[in-house]
C-alpha cells in the first residue's frame, strides 16, 4: 500500500523542484508509473477478503478497482490540463498539479482506509482541493456559486455522518472495518435508530448524488476545468458509492424498510435526469446529468444490498467513471476550440474532426451501455437484481435505459452529424495528446470486456 502512497506523496516535492521545461512530462511519466504499479492491487486473490494490509490501510475487492481507477486518473488529468494551463505562470501550473496530486493522495487514503473516521476525514479532505480547482481555474463567473453549492451540500450531509459515526463508536467501541461487521448493534429507541440510519447514509447519498440532493453536481461539473470535471465524475462520485457499500453492512436490519424511499427516489431520478438530458443545450451539463442518471442506478442497486446488485454497482461505477471522464475530455476538445459549451455552436464535427468522431462514437456507445462493454454488464446486473427485488422496478429501469440511449444518441448526432456551423472558420485538428488521452480512457474500458472479474467485488 505504501509502495503507491509514498511515491504519490513525493510527487508533490517533485512538482515544485523540477524545472519548468520538464514539469509536465515528468509529472505525467511519474504518475503513469505509479498508475502502472497500482495495477498490482488487482492481482490480489478476491476470495480472502482484505489484502495488502497494514494497521491503517488495506484493500479488498471492492476498494481495489476504485483505487486503481484513482491512480489511473492522475496521468489522464495531467494530460488533459496541459493545454489550458500552458499560458499561466509556472508557479500556478505547479499549484494546479499539486492540487491534483493531493487529491490523489486523499483518495488513496480514503479508499484504503480501514477505519471509518479515517475514511470520513479523507472523504472531507477531498473537498478542499476540488473546491480550489473548481473556483480558481473554472472559466465562468458561476464557478463561485458552484463551489459554494458543492462544499455546502456535501458538508450538510457529512456533519450528521460524523455524529452518527461517533455514536456508533460509543456503542461498539471501535470503528474498524475488520471488526464492525461482526459486532451486534443495539439501539433502544426505534425513532433514534431511524434518524441514525439516515444520518449515516445522507452524506453518501448527497455525494452520489441522489436525485433530490443532486443540484450541486451540474453546477460543479459544468464550471470546473477539465481536470476538475474528470476527477469529479470519475472518482469523487464513487466515493459516495463506496462509502454506502461499506456502511450499509452495519445498518441492518432496518434497512429493509427504510431504504424504500431512497431506492424509489434514485430510480425516479434516473428517468428525470435522463429526460432533462434530452433537452439540454449545454454539452457539459448533458454529461453531468447523465452522470446523475447512471449514479441513480448505482444508488438503487447499493441500497438493495444483494450480491449481484453490489457487483453490478461496482462494475457500473468503474465503467461510468471511465466513460464519463472520456466524454468530458471530448467536450473539452470542443471547448478549447470554440470556447463555448453550447452544442449547437459545434456541430458537424465528424466532417471537421473525423478522428475525434471515432472517440465520440465509442464513448457514446459506452454511455448507452452497448454490449459487450462493461457498462452493459453493470447495468444489466443492476436491472436484474432490482427486478428480483421488485418486478415493478423494471418499468423505471427499462424506461431509463431507453432514455439513456435517447440522449446519448442525441448528444452524438448533435455534435457529430448535421450541418457545419457557418462561424467555424478555422478549427485546430485534434492533437496527439488528445488522442492519447482518449485512448487511455477507452482502452481500459475495452480491455475490461475480456476480464471483468477484476471488477466483480466479492462475487468473484
Amino acid at each position, binding site marked *: 500500500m505504501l509502495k503507491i502512497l509514498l511515491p504519490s506523496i513525493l510527487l508533490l516535492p517533485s512538482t515544485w523542484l523540477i524545472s519548468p521545461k520538464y514539469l509536465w512530462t515528468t509529472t505525467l511519466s511519474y504518475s503513469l508509473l505509479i498508475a502502472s504499479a497500482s495495477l498490482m492491487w488487482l492481482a490480489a486473490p478476491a476470495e480472502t477478503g482484505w489484502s495488502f494490509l497494514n494497521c491503517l490501510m488495506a484493500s479488498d475487492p471492492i476498494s481495489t478497482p476504485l483505487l486503481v481507477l484513482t491512480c489511473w486518473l492522475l496521468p489522464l488529468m495531467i494530460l488533459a490540463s496541459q493545454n489550458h494551463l500552458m499560458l*499561466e505562470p509556472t*508557479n500556478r501550473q505547479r*499549484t494546479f498539479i499539486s492540487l491534483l496530486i493531493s487529491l490523489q493522495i*486523499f483518495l488513496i487514503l480514503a479508499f484504503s482506509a480501514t477505519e471509518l473516521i479515517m475514511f*470520513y*476525514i*479523507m472523504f*472531507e*479532505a477531498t*473537498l*478542499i482541493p476540488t473546491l*480550489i480547482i473548481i*473556483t*480558481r481555474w473554472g472559466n465562468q463567473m458561476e464557478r*463561485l456559486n458552484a*463551489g*459554494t453549492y458543492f*462544499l*455546502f451540500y456535501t*458538508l*450538510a450531509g457529512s*456533519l*450528521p455522518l*460524523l*455524529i452518527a459515526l*461517533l*455514536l456508533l*463508536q*460509543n456503542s461498539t467501541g471501535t470503528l474498524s472495518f475488520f471488526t464492525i461487521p461482526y459486532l451486534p448493534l443495539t439501539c433502544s429507541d426505534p425513532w433514534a435508530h431511524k434518524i441514525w440510519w439516515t*444520518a449515516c447514509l445522507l452524506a453518501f447519498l448527497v455525494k452520489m448524488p441522489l436525485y433530490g440532493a443532486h443540484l450541486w453536481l451540474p453546477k460543479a461539473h459544468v464550471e470546473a476545468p477539465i481536470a476538475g470535471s474528470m476527477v469529479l465524475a470519475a472518482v469523487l462520485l464513487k466515493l459516495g458509492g463506496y462509502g454506502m457499500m461499506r456502511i450499509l453492512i452495519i445498518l441492518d436490519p432496518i434497512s429493509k424498510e427504510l431504504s424504500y424511499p431512497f431506492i424509489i427516489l434514485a430510480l425516479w431520478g434516473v428517468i428525470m435526469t435522463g429526460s432533462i438530458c434530452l433537452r439540454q443545450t449545454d454539452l457539459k451539463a448533458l454529461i453531468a446529468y447523465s452522470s446523475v442518471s447512471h449514479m441513480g442506478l448505482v444508488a438503487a442497486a447499493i441500497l438493495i444490498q444483494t450480491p449481484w446488485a453490489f457487483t453490478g454497482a461496482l462494475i457500473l461505477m468503474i465503467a461510468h467513471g471511465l466513460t464519463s471522464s472520456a466524454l468530458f475530455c471530448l467536450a473539452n476538445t470542443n471547448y478549447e476550440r470554440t470556447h463555448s459549451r453550447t452544442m449547437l455552436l459545434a456541430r458537424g464535427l465528424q466532417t471537421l474532426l473525423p478522428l475525434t468522431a471515432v472517440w465520440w462514437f465509442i464513448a457514446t456507445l459506452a454511455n448507452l451501455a452497448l454490449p459487450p462493454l462493461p457498462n452493459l454488464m453493470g447495468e444489466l446486473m443492476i436491472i436484474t437484481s432490482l427486478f428480483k427485488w421488485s418486478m415493478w422496478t423494471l418499468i423505471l429501469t427499462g424506461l431509463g435505459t431507453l432514455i439513456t440511449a435517447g440522449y446519448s444518441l442525441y448528444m452524438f448526432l448533435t455534435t457529430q452529424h448535421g450541418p457545419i456551423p457557418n462561424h467555424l472558420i478555422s478549427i485546430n485538428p485534434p492533437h496527439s495528446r488528445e488522442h492519447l488521452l482518449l485512448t487511455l480512457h477507452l482502452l481500459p474500458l475495452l480491455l475490461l470486456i475480456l476480464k471483468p472479474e477484476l471488477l466483480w467485488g466479492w462475487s468473484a
Partner: protein
Amino acid sequence: MAPPIYSALIISLGLGTTMTFASTHWYLAWMGIEINTLAIIPLMSQNHIPRATEATTKYFFAQATASATLLFASISNAFLTGEWDILQTPNTLTYSLITLALAMKIGLAPLHSWMPEVMQGLSLLTGLILSTWQKLAPLYLIYQIQPTNSNIFIVLGLLSIIVGGWGGFNQVQLRKILAYSSIAHLGWMILILSFSPPLALLTILIYLLMTFSLFSSFMLTRATHINSLATTWAKIPILTISTPLILLSLGGLPPLTGFMPKWLILQELTKQDLAPIATLAALSSLFSLYFYLRLSYAMTLTMPPNNPAGTLPWRLNPRHNTTLMSLATTSTICLLPVTPAIMAMLPL
C-alpha cells in the same frame, strides 16, 4: 505613544491576567480583570481617531457592566454562603449570575452586541489582543468555578455558535467578521466546558493559534475590508495560499487543524448522550464557514487573470517579521495528525 507609557500598559495587561490566574479569592480575581480592562483602554484609543474613541467607550461600558455584575454576584455569594473561594462556588443563582457576567466579558451570545462594534474601531493589533489575551482571564474564572449544571453553558454555547455564524453573513469589514468568528469559536468552547474542561482548554488554544495566524495575515497587508483582500496577490503572493487554508481551518474543515476541536467536542457531546445538540452545533458552524469561504473567494479564487475585484492600492514596503506568524500558520494547517499527542499533553 511614548515608550514608557506603552510598556507600562503592556505590563499592566500582563499583570491583570496573571493576578486573575493566581487568585483564589473573588476580590483579587475581579481586581485582575479590572486592571486588564483599564490597561487596554488607552491602548485602544491610542491613535485618537473618533471611531477608536467610540469603540473604547463602548468597550468600557460593556466591561464595566460585566465587572460590576461580577462583583455584585461574588459579594452576594459571599453574603449567602460565606465563601470567597473561587473553587468553592456552589451552584446557585449567584453562580449563574457570575457565569453571565463572565460571558458578557468575553462576548458570548446573547451578550455579544458590543463585540463587533468595538472590534471595528480598533487597529488590527489591538483587535488581536482583544480577541486573544482579553479572553483568557474570564475563561480561566469560568474554568475554575467547576461547572456542573450544563444547561446554561449549552444555551450560551449554541446561541453563540448560531449568532456568530449568522451575524457574520452580511459583513464586509474584516474586523467585524473576526469578531463574529470569535463569538462562534467561544461558543464551541463554552459548549464543552461543563463536560470536559480540558477539551475547552484545547479549543481555546487552537482558536488562539488560528486567530493569531489570521490577524497576522491581515496585518501584513493591512487589509480591513473584503475588497482590500483582492489585491493580496500583488503584495504578498504566498498569503493567497496560506490565508484561505487558515480560513478553512477556522471553518473546521478536515484535514486542517481547526477540525480537531470540533471533532473532539462532538465526540464528547455524543458520549454525554447529547447527539441532537451536537448535530445542531455542527450544522450551525456551516454558517461561519460560508463567510470564511467568501473571504477566500475574494482573496484567492478570483485572482487574475480573472477580473480583479478591487482597485489597486498603494504598495508600501512594510518590514515583515513573520517568524511567529509562519509558525502559527503552519500549526493552523498541519496539526491534525498530531491530535493524539496533543490530547496526551492535556490534563485529561
